[in-house]
């Protein structure tokens, strides 16, 4: 591991001059060099740039809450340096002419982006196996997936290559890899973090958020990322609460909602159920009241999601036409439509094609009402379910993923089986609410694999969700465990 493997530890060490920012970045780069052949967390590493920025930190020219801290950035977030590939052949050589707002904010806060990380192509997937550049491996067991789609960011942090990482979450793509890699991950309220420069997958569901080893690290990064941005018309003007300052305050009279419909959810691993039940017990010991709530539309969440997300994707990804940027076929084309169809067939991988096809079908004449429009009505019902539930509790507590990390190849042959892994996470994106995943245990047969606990709260409740998470973290030791990946 890095000697200072959390953001908090790294910042303290730099502040006390125990280590320089350059040394920290050198350690990060050395760790990537040693392990990434095996883990494959990164699509690109910017060693020289990172060292130059670190030197500016040491010379006092770059300051801020993340000054000198090496972090990793998911490769669907635009940077004016290097490439932004979305782990797709389509964008393999794409160089963004501008920085995403979050990149500007992270660098203004002093963070050092050492590299960009692997993902399921265009963030479509739950295992990072759908990358055109090959899968990422889970540092806890390299035979297993790290989750997805932000699997590269999660694996980079879990392998100790960086102190923090940024991902995006459209249906669980931060929370699920956080769960499978033993990390804390936050999907903020829709509109809380600017999407300017995030390559669009499903625009009404996408949100950027952080990974950390601890609640404090996630709070620190969230504080930097959050806020209104004139460049994103869906970004919210509400002021951002100071999550870091309140983090250590327990929530008095805490009421946690347990979802009745989740009790009968299929395919929940017994180890996951046991760990989440134990976590609920822990909260009860701390004085929390457990309230049974009902989310009657929940069983239809995955179905609604896999209509809405592909529909938006089929529209968003229409821009990849082989004309303006991205891959163009070398085959002769007789007509402009021929050029589009061949370029897209060559540039997109199988899962992206499947989703474009599903979305095109759901939006096509004759099917629009039965699929897309009906899914939007179900979306309203899901949002109303949550509104009712949050009248009775401060947060909902449930598993993040029904299963711990699964073997590479185990689910990749059956798209529908892979979709079902998202059962506990997609509804937060559908409703727009924030969701947090934090470690709550490990499997006990075979190599220990992390298990994630999910907390869902009403819009803008990030500060309180983080406090609730911190109550559990302060009472447990899970967040101190680290994997030991070998080169």
């Amino acid at each position, binding site marked *: 591991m890095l000697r200072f493997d959390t953001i908090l530890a790294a910042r303290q060490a730099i502040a006390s001059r125990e280590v320089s920012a350059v040394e920290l970045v050198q350690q990060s780069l050395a760790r990537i060099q040693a392990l990434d052949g095996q883990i494959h967390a990164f699509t690109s590493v910017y060693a020289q740039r990172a060292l130059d920025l670190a030197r500016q930190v040491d010379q006092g020219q770059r300051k801020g809450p993340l000054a000198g801290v090496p972090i990793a950035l998911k490769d669907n977030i635009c940077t004016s340096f290097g490439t932004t590939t979305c782990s797709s052949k389509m964008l393999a*050589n*794409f*160089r963004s*002419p501008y920085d995403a707002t979050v990149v500007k904010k992270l660098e203004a806060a002093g963070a050092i982006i050492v590299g960009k990380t692997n993902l399921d192509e265009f963030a479509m997937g739950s295992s990072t196996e759908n990358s055109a550049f090959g899968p990422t491996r889970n540092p806890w067991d390299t035979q297993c997936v790290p989750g997805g789609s932000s699997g590269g960011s999660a694996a980079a942090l879990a392998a100790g290559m960086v102190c923090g990482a940024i991902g995006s979450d459209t249906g669980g793509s931060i929370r699920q890899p956080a769960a499978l890699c033993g990390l804390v991950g936050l999907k903020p309220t*829709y*509109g809380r973090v600017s999407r300017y420069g995030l390559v669009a997958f499903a625009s*009404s569901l996408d949100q950027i958020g952080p990974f950390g080893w601890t609640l404090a690290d996630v709070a620190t990064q969230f504080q930097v990322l959050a806020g209104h941005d004139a460049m994103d*018309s*869906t970004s*919210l003007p509400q002021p951002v609460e100071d999550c870091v300052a309140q983090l250590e305050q327990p929530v008095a009279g805490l009421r946690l909602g347990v979802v009745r419909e989740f009790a009968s959810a299929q395919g929940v691993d017994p180890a996951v159920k046991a760990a989440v039940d134990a976590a609920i017990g822990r909260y009860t010991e701390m004085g929390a009241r457990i309230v049974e709530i009902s989310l009657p*539309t929940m069983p*239809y969440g*995955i*179905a*609604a999601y*896999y*209509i809405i997300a592909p529909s938006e994707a*089929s529209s968003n990804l*229409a821009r990849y036409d*082989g*004309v*303006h*940027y*991205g*891959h*163009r076929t070398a085959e*002769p*084309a*007789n*007509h*402009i*439509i*021929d*050029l589009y*169809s*061949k370029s*897209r*067939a060559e540039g997109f991988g199988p899962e992206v*094609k*499947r989703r*474009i*096809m*599903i979305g095109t*079908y759901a939006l096509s004449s004759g099917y629009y009402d039965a*699929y897309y*429009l*009906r*899914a*939007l*009505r*179900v*979306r309203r*019902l899901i*949002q109303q379910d949550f509104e009712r539930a949050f009248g009775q509790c401060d947060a909902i507590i449930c598993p993040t993923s029904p299963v711990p990390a699964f073997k590479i190849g185990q689910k990749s042959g059956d*798209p*529908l089986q892979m*979709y079902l892994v998202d059962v506990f996470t997609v509804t937060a994106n*559908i*409703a*727009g609410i924030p969701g947090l995943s934090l470690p709550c245990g490990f499997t006990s047969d075979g190599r220990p694999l992390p298990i994630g606990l999910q907390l869902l709260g009403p819009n803008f409740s990030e500060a309180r969700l983080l406090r609730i998470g911190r109550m559990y973290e302060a009472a447990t030791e899970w967040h101190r465990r680290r994997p030991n990946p070998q080169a």
Partner: protein
Amino acid sequence: MAGSNITVEQVQQIARLARLQIDPQQARRLGQELGAILDYVATIGQLDTTGVEPMAHPLPLQNVLREDVAGEALPVEQVLMNAPQTDGPFFKVPKVIGGEKPEA
């Protein structure tokens, strides 16, 4: 709802709309996969959604307006720097007039 009966012809029709060239072998496989996925997502048909307002977006945001003033824009060279082919300040594409339009 069509569900599991996605024929190769239907797959090719969707592929044409999506501007994706699909070979016959892929089309057969996609037909099975899409059939299974569409069967599953069609379960939302079991819910009574009568009178429910469709929700396209999580935020109740109305039009976001601003003054219509010219801001900074990307220079043409940067706009074109990722284009597969250019000609001066233009994107270049193969000749499209006189070619045969694929069946749509």
